[in-house]
């Protein structure tokens, strides 16, 4: 029995008919074809699927689409404007904060939630915040540098 879900997705009002068991990440990737949000583990561990729901970072593989009825959702696709990278994306490029890039959208959405509440985080605060984001390539050092630099660029 399908249910209609209406949300704001990256600033646009959209709706879709889904099964109650449809995950938010399936709605985003398979229905709306925004494939920047990744599925790594599908078991709430890796953070590749992190998006913002009403401004808070969450794991979209562990949320039902029906739970976010009426919510404001932002994905990695909301960041670049008119072909210009967001300062945090630019910082990842400049500081080699990614190798294969699979974890990157989730890491960036997670980092932006940190910076919204803590515009100038210390290295330890960044490392602790990344508890829910696994990266199998970089060893994290360049991710931490990139987030620091991105935060600085955002402070202007």
């Amino acid at each position, binding site marked *: 029995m399908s249910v209609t879900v209406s949300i704001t997705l990256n600033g646009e009002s959209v709706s879709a008919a889904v099964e109650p*068991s449809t995950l938010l990440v399936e709605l985003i990737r398979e229905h709306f074809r925004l494939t920047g949000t990744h599925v790594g583990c599908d078991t709430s*561990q890796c*953070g590749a699927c*992190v998006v913002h729901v009403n401004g808070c970072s*969450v794991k979209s593989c*562990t*949320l039902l689409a*029906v*739970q976010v009825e009426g919510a404001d959702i932002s994905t990695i696709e909301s960041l670049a404007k008119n072909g210009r990278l967001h300062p945090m994306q630019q910082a990842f490029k400049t500081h080699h904060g990614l190798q294969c890039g699979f974890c990157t959208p989730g890491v960036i959405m997670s980092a932006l939630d940190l910076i919204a509440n803590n515009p100038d985080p210390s290295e330890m605060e960044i490392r602790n915040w990344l*508890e829910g984001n696994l990266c199998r390539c970089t060893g994290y050092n360049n991710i931490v540098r990139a987030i620091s630099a991105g935060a600085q660029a955002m402070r202007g």
Partner: protein
Amino acid sequence: MYQFVYQRPGSLPEAVEQSTQAREGLFLAGGMTLIPTMKLRLTAPSNLIDLTDLAELKGIRQEGNAIIVGATTTHAQVVSTPEVRDLLPALAALAESIGDPQVRNRGTIGGSIANADPAADYPAAVVGLGAIVKTNTRTIAGDDFFTGLFETALDPNELIVAVSFPIPQRAAYMKFPNPASRYAIVGVMVSQGNDGVRVAVTGAGPNVFRVPEMEQALAVNFAPEVLEEITVSADELNEDLHASADYRAHLIKVMAKRAVVAAT
């Protein structure tokens, strides 16, 4: 996951009614435990009753000498609420040690204690601070709430509304976390309040338990040295790939001492 009917009641009575009517209804709070369990097909509710819109279950407030935390309060809300940080910093620190930021943004206190995972953190706070669990039908003393491995005193269709924590004179929570999940391999809450000293241990046994010998010694002298002479038995403690029962018994004393130091 198996198919189910999703319901989103607007009030507490409506939620209880929907759960009573359902063949096999389950309440859905943050979903951080329930959704992974459903994906693994370890549970297959006929109806999911989402508690998100129930005003009765929301919010944190101070009432006399107690902090009342609504059942659907997220771990992140506990961390960021000024009353909790000022009056019950041990609870804010405990909530901040759970999982990762995204789990804390969704997971709730009601879901955590209803689930009664042997390695969950909140059970140590409920028992270690002498809290009272308020449900839609009654109040349950924290000491009587956890009854076994993943088992609680809740009846079918009974809903946790809030948890009331008396404000202690001093308290601290120390845990030895699993480095991957941050669940407690051993976590100890020590508090001193109007009803004396409490030492509650999570992660080590099938469910949270108190250590009366430590409580008695600390009531005489609230200092880490008094725990030195107490031996914690490894009998009936958990043993898994993370830690042996002997190691857990050792950790109980180490974490208890650290908690006493942090609380003084």
